[in-house]
């Protein structure tokens, strides 16, 4: 359930090819499966993409272009790029504190189809985290 879909968000990812000439950019397309009403009361659309690997080069600017493509032509159903924005993000040197105290994980049940369980993962931080920081839990 989201601003653009009543169920799952549908995404198509094209990896692109940086060896092609010219390089083919990576491309993530997200479909509107429900109408979005923004003319009367403008509202935010927020997309979070997890598990993206930062470039390994420090201080590298990575550009992102966002387009909203609205179907505009009935015969071919062409999506026309109607709105466009550009942004970028920068990589920085990793300044990570290593957790020195052993972490622990306690599973209340390891059956595959068991639901409604509470597992406990314990870690001891070596520095503080604030309200704007995040903890990532990755299920590989």
């Amino acid at each position: 359930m989201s601003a653009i879909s009543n169920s799952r968000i549908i995404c198509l990812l094209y990896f692109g090819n940086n060896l092609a000439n010219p390089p083919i950019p990576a491309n993530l397309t997200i479909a509107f499966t429900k109408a979005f009403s923004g003319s009367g009361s403008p509202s935010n659309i927020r997309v979070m993409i997890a598990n993206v690997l930062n470039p390994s080069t420090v201080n590298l600017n990575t550009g992102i272009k966002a387009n909203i493509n609205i179907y505009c032509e009935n015969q071919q159903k062409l999506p026309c790029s109607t709105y466009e924005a550009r942004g970028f993000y920068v990589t920085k040197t990793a300044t990570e504190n290593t957790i020195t105290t052993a972490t622990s994980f306690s599973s209340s049940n390891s059956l595959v189809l068991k639901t409604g369980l509470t597992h406990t993962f314990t870690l001891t931080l070596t520095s503080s985290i604030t309200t704007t920081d995040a903890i990532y839990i990755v299920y590989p």
Partner: protein
Amino acid sequence: MNVIQFGQYAINNAPLRFSLSMQSAYVDNTAYTYIIPLMQNPGTAYVTLRYNLSLVNSPSGSYEYVFNMYQSINEYYTVSSTSSLMTTSITNNLRTVQSVSSVDLSVNLGSYSLNQWNAAIFKINNALPALLPAISSPNDTSNYNYFYFKNINMIMAQKKSSNNIATIGIGASSSVVNYQSTFGISWVKIFSTSNAPLSTNPYTLYYSTPPTLTLTTLTSYASTSLNLIEGYSSVGSTAFYSATLTTPIIPEGGEIRVLFDNTVFSSNSNDACRVGAGFSRSSNDYSALRCYRQSQGFRIAGFSGISASTSIQVYFKLTSLTAAASSAIQADIFGIYLDNTTRISLANINTITITASSVPNSLLKFQSMVTPYFATLLTNYKYYLIEGTFNLRVTTLNNPDYLYITEPGWTVYGNRRLLIKQNSSSVTGWTELAGYSNTANYYRFQIPTNFLIQQQINPSTQYLFRYTTCYASTTSTLTWSQYNGFVVGGPGVSKFWLTTYDAGAYTEIGYFDFVPFPEPFVLTVNNRYPAAGRLTMLDLLFTVNVNVVVGSQIVFTFDTNNLLNQMFANDL
């Protein structure tokens, strides 16, 4: 109702018991036959067999009781197997996918013919999904008595004639899955038996496993057409086509490929094609209706199931690479996306003949327009200057030749202007072509005598052109009608044609798509963990102040030209 109790004889001598209940009334002095298939003899020779047959009456409201019983003790005994392997096959003429009661089947015994009253049993392999597990009616009743065990899909055919015949007809069945799949008979066994009570145990003469067969695919479509919408089919030209075909059944999760010969064509549809009539998005949460480029055509997936005789439509652009006569455009349809073993059909939609580029009426290459944003002077209107490029193939234009522009009647404020400049760093000035005349959205511009230093437009040279307007007078207070430019009502595709007129004849033409620049908005990018080489989460935020219809898209393009693969090394 049949109930089978699988007794473990080793445990208290528990027997195997078959119970038939809720039967119709039995009539005295009438013979009844019970056939119990697929019973396995003990594995040791000279073991006697024993069975009981009991008739039990279960009157309503009272206790049931046995009122008749027969007990056979040591009537039969096992012997060592003397059966041998034989070669059999399935004879079949029609086994096309999506056929109803027309998959004809018979078992071919080679040169072997059953003796009268011997029997063959064979079981249709229920693990192979192609056939409907039902035989409508056996088709050789003059030679065989048939017994069909419909739940296990097994047939027993007892030879009743003494004819020398080496096949056993089964009858017709229907294909179940809608795409190419296999079917077959698990095994064939031939028994020495009789139509009368025997003093010896019936025994197996031959056994065999015939090879499986595969449903064949459809090789034609009920109706097809390939329409040239724009452009010409000549070498170097890009043309815009629509393909229409009447489909067989395509299940949800299937796939349609539009194929072309990639030595004759390349795609110029920006790696995409478009679907038209007949498609709707699958309701599957994981599906998106899509049409995209593959090495030899386009692939369409993510659509809802398509019923038989549905007319579907696909749009695409192809650039012709070489001259060719009747190069086929095909539709290759599969039941399961990306599974080449599940083909439903492969057949031509139509053919395209590509003429050589040296013919007199050869054409311009298809060009995509560059559309710089010109002005936004009023809230509801936008004014556009249109800029593009073209190369002439063989035509040389000089005064008094013409360039024609055919456009679909945009609202224009001011007079139309066409400016041309050779795309070269050594040529800096633009030349305006003289005036225009209009006939039904058909505008004519003449090549001037002092044009571009060289006095002419040469073939195989790229030229830039700007199509715009000019309002001659100026006043201190401008009104709408005094601004310059084409007014395009909103986002969408517009088209126009550029045609050359040389020495009294139209010689070359180019088709142009024109899409206005998008409106800018603000994208906030927050890399939640910016450490180089580490996994992160990108937090992308923007505000939308317009209504967006279903089917529209948000597209994020990571257009930095390095490290793209590394950015998406992980599956999202």
